[in-house]
């Protein structure tokens, strides 16, 4: 295996693989992706994978998500079928306080050109007849949808490899040094040299940052999700909390726990999630759960992406975010632009790591 690269990306999840693909697609060669395990072993392989825009705040962040969601149809044409489906997104609510919130949300989004409709009970039930008849209403946006996360990462990875990107898996990075205009990246399987270094470690970003004495404030949030066995297609929309896959399974859950890297599931939360399932879709009562899984989300301290160059260290970049599935095509594109041209077509200054106070450890 070569040891000398133009660009090394640490992390082969949805962001790392998307950056590798987009960069290689711009005829940039000599790219290496290092993964401590195997792509999909972490967050990217344990998600409901909604492509979700609506109900994200602040509205400029929703706008950022919208740009990315709009790239999916084009992306599928380039890297292959990723089972992306723009189903439209539905967020049911069950009380009047939430209706007020929904109306405010629609108003705020209108200004940036994202259309959200606040549906009445009848309209919600007409769209999604299997919803609980006690629903008070729902917010609806046609932008939202879902994707097969396994396919997405697999296709990014295969397309990147086709463009000449190399992957070194089950290979943890242990040390990073900056020597003149080069990075020396020491890993379990050998030492590599590169000009550009991109940290795309997801939940492990904080640990990667320590190797270059930079504080990347990304925390871990655990989500537990139930999977039913495949059911005949019956859900028309991606419901925030419940969605049906291409294959027919229904994925249920919207939970957040602070448990570090512990990916255990608990019966307490499985039962709560089952309650949520029948609260949203009473007909699911008879469906069988075959598995509960747990994913560790990467959660930057203020909830917003951390993107771009790292001040003070030339040619060192970071890409860490929540909602990696939704944002991957855009972030992949923008990071490639940044590395190739030094500027991006969509401004990312807001997402710079310099917004945090304690940059240096």
């Amino acid at each position, binding site marked *: 295996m070569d040891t000398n690269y133009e660009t090394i990306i640490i992390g082969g999840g949805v962001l790392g693989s998307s950056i590798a693909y987009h960069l290689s697609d711009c005829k940039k060669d000599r790219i290496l992706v290092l993964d401590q395990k195997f792509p999909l072993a972490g967050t990217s392989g344990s998600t409901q994978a909604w492509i979700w825009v609506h109900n994200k705040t602040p509205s400029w962040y929703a706008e950022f998500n919208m740009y990315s969601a709009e790239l999916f149809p084009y992306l599928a044409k380039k890297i292959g079928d990723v089972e992306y489906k723009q189903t439209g997104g539905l967020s049911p609510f069950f009380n009047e306080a939430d209706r007020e919130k929904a109306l405010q949300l629609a108003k705020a989004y209108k200004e940036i050109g994202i259309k959200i409709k606040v549906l009445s009970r009848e309209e919600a039930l007409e769209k999604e007849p299997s919803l609980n008849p006690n629903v008070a209403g729902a917010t609806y946006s046609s932008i939202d949808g879902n994707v097969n996360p396994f396919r997405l990462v697999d296709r990014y990875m295969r397309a990147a490899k086709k463009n000449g990107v190399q992957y070194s898996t089950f290979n943890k990075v242990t040390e990073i040094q900056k020597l003149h205009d080069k990075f020396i990246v020491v890993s379990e399987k050998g030492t590599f040299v590169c000009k550009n270094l991109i940290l795309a470690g997801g939940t492990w970003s904080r640990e990667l940052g320590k190797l270059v004495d930079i504080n990347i404030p990304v925390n871990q949030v655990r989500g537990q999700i139930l999977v039913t066995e495949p059911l005949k297609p019956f859900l028309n929309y991606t419901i925030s909390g419940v969605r049906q896959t291409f294959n027919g399974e229904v994925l249920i859950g919207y939970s957040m726990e602070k448990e570090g*890297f*512990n*990916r*255990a599931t*608990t*019966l*307490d939360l499985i039962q709560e999630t089952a309650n949520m399932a029948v609260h949203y879709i009473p007909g699911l009562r008879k469906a069988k759960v075959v598995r*509960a899984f747990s994913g560790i989300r990467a959660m930057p301290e203020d909830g917003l992406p951390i993107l771009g160059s790292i001040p003070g260290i030339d040619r060192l970049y970071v890409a860490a975010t929540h909602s990696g599935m939704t944002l991957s095509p855009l972030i992949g594109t923008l990071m490639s632009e940044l590395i190739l041209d030094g500027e991006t077509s969509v401004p990312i200054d807001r997402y710079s790591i310099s917004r945090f106070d304690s940059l240096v450890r």
Partner: protein
Amino acid sequence: METDVLIIGAGPAGLTAAVETASRGLDVTIVEESLSMGGQLIQQTQVLGSLPSFYQPKRGFELAQRLRKLVEDTSVRCLLGHRVIGFYKDGSVGISDEANVFPLKAKKIIVATGAAEKAIAFPKWTLPGIMTIGAAQTLLNRDFVLPGKHAVIIGTSDFAMDVALQLSEGGVQVKAMVEKSQTVLARDTEKVNQVSKMGIPVHVNSSIKEARGIGRVEEIDIEQREQIMTIPLDTVCVDGGRSPILDVFYQLECSFGYQRELGGWIPQYNPFFRTDREDVFLAGNAAGVSSQGVLLVTGIIAGINASESLGALSKEEAEIKTTSLWKEIETLETKLDPDVWNARIRHVQNYEHPVLTDQFIS
């Protein structure tokens, strides 16, 4: 619901563990998914030769009856038709009877979930009529149904020999036994002779090439030294060996080690049949696939040491008993297959160095 000792699985190991703990005055609960006690012993009609010295040779189902009687004479709470589905944050066990899920808080847990048969894959192995040898035996001796008229058995373990004989006696024509190794795997030569006396051909250096049939298996191709032999039949029984059932241990975050001779991955445990979790013991095939006799002994050891950990038995007494029971395992296991015994010793010695740990850490 609360209990001193929860035993998961009412097979031979679970039942002996239940007797050991309940007879010392502990409050004991057994959870068993099926509606009857005895586990896989229920359909074993063969005589079990190598039982511990304190048992007389018996047929499997007779041993199950006896264990059942012993348990019924105690105050053990038997939750038949119940299964463990998972665990709560506070360590309580989640149990379901299909209508409800409820937590059960146990001071100690003895896991005796047994072993599962492994599959053998070949073209069209998914056709109806192709089943594990354990399934064929269950049909025959528990459901009283003939699996078919003409069968071939893929595999030649001792268990395969038992099932071949039982199928023959039940009226199924066993047309062949197929073994990919150079020799028959069964160690019980008496059984191998019986099979040969029944006129069942045993093909070594052979493997199943493919199955065919419309809606059900109708014929198979056996390949032996590049020769293909086609056998018309309606039943194929596959013997892929067995491996411990580990789901419960995995959820309990126990560590694992690998011992091929004991069935592959098994929970790590010490001489007291305790896992690396203070409150979790194990017994039976779940602690390494072995003979019926050994399973009983492991159940006793786990029961004794779980009792000791709850103060129902002195440490000294538990140690003396455990040591002599290990001798019993050595006798039985060495007679059966010294490699199995050696693997078990190796495994226990590895207690401090499990191979697979922290499985839920990202």
